[in-house]
């Protein structure tokens, strides 16, 4: 017991949190990510490697079920931290401290493990299926389907999201995969019915008549793009560059003076922009042309920078450069062109609608890059569901 407790204390000093983001609570996710980074903790990407589930926001029923599934798959010692959408940084820090104490408490963890239902093998929560022929262990075998390759082999229905690293909060894409090629995709939003569209705040506030400077809006826009760029780089398998983007995002949001941000952002954008390897890995797929723009009524960066994933990344970088140059602009904000398009028209709906067509036929990692390069902001849909904006108010 003594050794066990010592090891637990040692491990609990630097847990690897798995962050479950909730739509409508982007602000608290950013604060939590910043706090995790400040502590030098390394985020985890699957329940197998984590003991700390960090839930940012109040999930609705559907999302809660997904989070429960992940929680249930986490081996002990484990701890769950729920921070609500209004939590301040200090509250998050305090909750994480409590979790660390809980993780180190071996006795309590053993008790908690004892109360978990004893499960041999597999038994998902709330899933009752009879054992019958063709379903060993209560789960069906895969079925076959035709393929462009001319071979009729098995297809798998594989859900991606909502609890996934570098993934838009509240989005779920169920892919039909044959091998690692996407044959079809169904997109669903599993979110709450409340919350705010964090990235669109300045523009929405300006529309409501509050005074917002263009500089503040530019900061928000730059941070939103840097958040997206960071995710895209994370999915592309460049974690150091992704971490850099995350730091820049936090610096921009924290109100660092323009001169300092400009210098460090410039170096970052040059490094990303000049990477031939990156361009080679993300070009020639996920192409959005005028036809796609018209069909799904796309607006914002995706429509402004037509082309492949690389084109969209270049577009984000260019827009961020412009926005960072404008962060000291004291004039009043006019217009409604937010990070993803006109904030009144929930442009992310179009991005989500366009996904299935874009994903079909893509290889798995290409599919993830396509999703990351569009980075739909589910917050917009969640907020819109609460307060449907009149189109031309």
């Amino acid at each position, binding site marked *: 017991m003594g050794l066990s407790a010592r090891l637990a204390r040692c491990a609990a000093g630097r847990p690897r949190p798995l962050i479950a983001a909730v739509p409508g609570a982007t602000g608290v996710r950013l604060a939590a990510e910043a706090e995790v980074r400040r502590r030098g903790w390394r985020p985890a990407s699957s329940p197998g490697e984590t003991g700390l589930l960090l839930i940012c926001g109040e999930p609705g029923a559907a999302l809660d079920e997904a989070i429960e599934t992940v929680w249930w798959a986490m081996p002990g010692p484990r701890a769950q931290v729920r921070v609500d959408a209004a939590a301040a940084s200090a509250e998050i820090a305090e909750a994480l401290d409590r979790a660390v104490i809980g993780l180190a408490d071996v006795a309590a963890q053993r008790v908690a493990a004892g109360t978990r239902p004893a499960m041999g093998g597999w038994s998902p929560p709330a899933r009752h299926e009879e054992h019958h022929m063709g379903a*060993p*262990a209560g789960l069906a*075998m895969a079925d076959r389907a035709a393929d462009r390759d001319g071979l*009729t082999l098995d297809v798998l229905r594989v859900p991606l999201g909502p609890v996934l690293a570098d993934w838009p909060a509240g989005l779920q894409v169920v892919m039909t995969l044959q091998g690692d090629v996407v044959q079809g995709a169904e997109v669903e939003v599993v979110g709450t019915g409340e919350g705010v569209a964090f990235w669109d705040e300045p523009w929405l506030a300006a529309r409501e008549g509050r005074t917002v400077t263009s500089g503040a809006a530019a900061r928000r826009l730059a941070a939103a793009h840097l958040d997206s760029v960071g995710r895209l780089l994370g999915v592309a398998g460049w974690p150091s560059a992704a971490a850099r983007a995350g730091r820049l995002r936090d610096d921009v949001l924290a109100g660092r003076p323009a001169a300092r941000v400009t210098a460090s952002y410039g170096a970052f954008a040059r490094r990303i922009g000049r990477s031939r390897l990156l361009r080679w890995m993300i070009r020639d797929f996920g192409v959005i042309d005028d036809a796609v723009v018209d069909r799904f009524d796309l607006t914002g960066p995706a429509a402004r920078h037509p082309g492949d994933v690389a084109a969209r990344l270049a577009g984000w970088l260019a827009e961020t450069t412009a926005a960072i140059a404008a962060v000291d602009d004291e004039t009043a904000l006019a217009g409604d062109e937010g990070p993803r398009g006109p904030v009144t028209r929930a442009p992310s709906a179009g991005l989500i609608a366009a996904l299935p067509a874009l994903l079909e036929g893509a290889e798995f990692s290409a599919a993830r890059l396509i999703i990351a390069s569009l980075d739909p902001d589910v917050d917009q849909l969640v907020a819109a569901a609460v307060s449907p904006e009149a189109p031309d108010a």
Partner: protein
Amino acid sequence: MQAVAFWGLAAVAVAGGIAVFVVGSMARATFALLASFLAAGVELLLIDLHYLGALVILMMIMEMLIMVVFMVMYMMNPAGLMPMVMVHNNRGALAISAGVFVALATGILLTPWPQRRGSPPRDVTFDLGQALMGPKMLVMMVIGVAILATMIASVVLATHRGRYDRHVRFDRAEPEPDLDPARGPRRRCRVTLETFLLLAAALFAVGLYGALSQQSIVMVMMGLELMVNGVLIAGGGFWYYVAPGTADGQVLVLVAITVMALEMAMGFAVVTALFRARDVDVTDDAGDLKG
């Protein structure tokens, strides 16, 4: 020590070979075959054939990993979650392979094998290189042409854009390289040429059973490979116990390794084309492709 190692590895080799046709999971079957090959590779290491032993390990790991790709791709229920039997003429196959083993074993034990001539050179691999660049040059060049032909033929057959994918020509499996491990008596539990040949005969018989009884083409290929595994062992044994002074035995093993790889490449290409055309990978259903 050497005898213990030999018999232990021999047991692994044969048990692995048998397991191939017993386990339900295609992944397990392939790795059982790999275990059989690895044991054979270490057997070769034991008789100073360091290069060939390491080569067998190297090549067989890669080939079995490629094998498993195709096994999983074309076999129904590849994880063996729903046990099913895909054999035909099981008893006949068992009888034939048992008969072959008995015949081979009798031959092995009754044949007066020649005395050992020469001794292993100081650097066995160097000797092999000398032979390949000298008297055995033709072997290498013929194999070069065969490799080229295999590459072209397999690409043509397997790719979707291939020109012949609707007219599958079903001429599977090159003939086994000349196998005549049958002659000679001697006794004792020591490791001798006979024991090597007996192991080879056992592997050959297990492989033969598989080749005769399995319905699925990829499983038939597993059987053929097990037979080639026997050839590897026999070739190594001949080299060490009969004529270590010349590189002939080594070249035989090299040829067997190569033939096996080419057979696999062609076999997979054929299976792919067949599956594309017919949606099956079963020999019984491919009968109408004859003639």
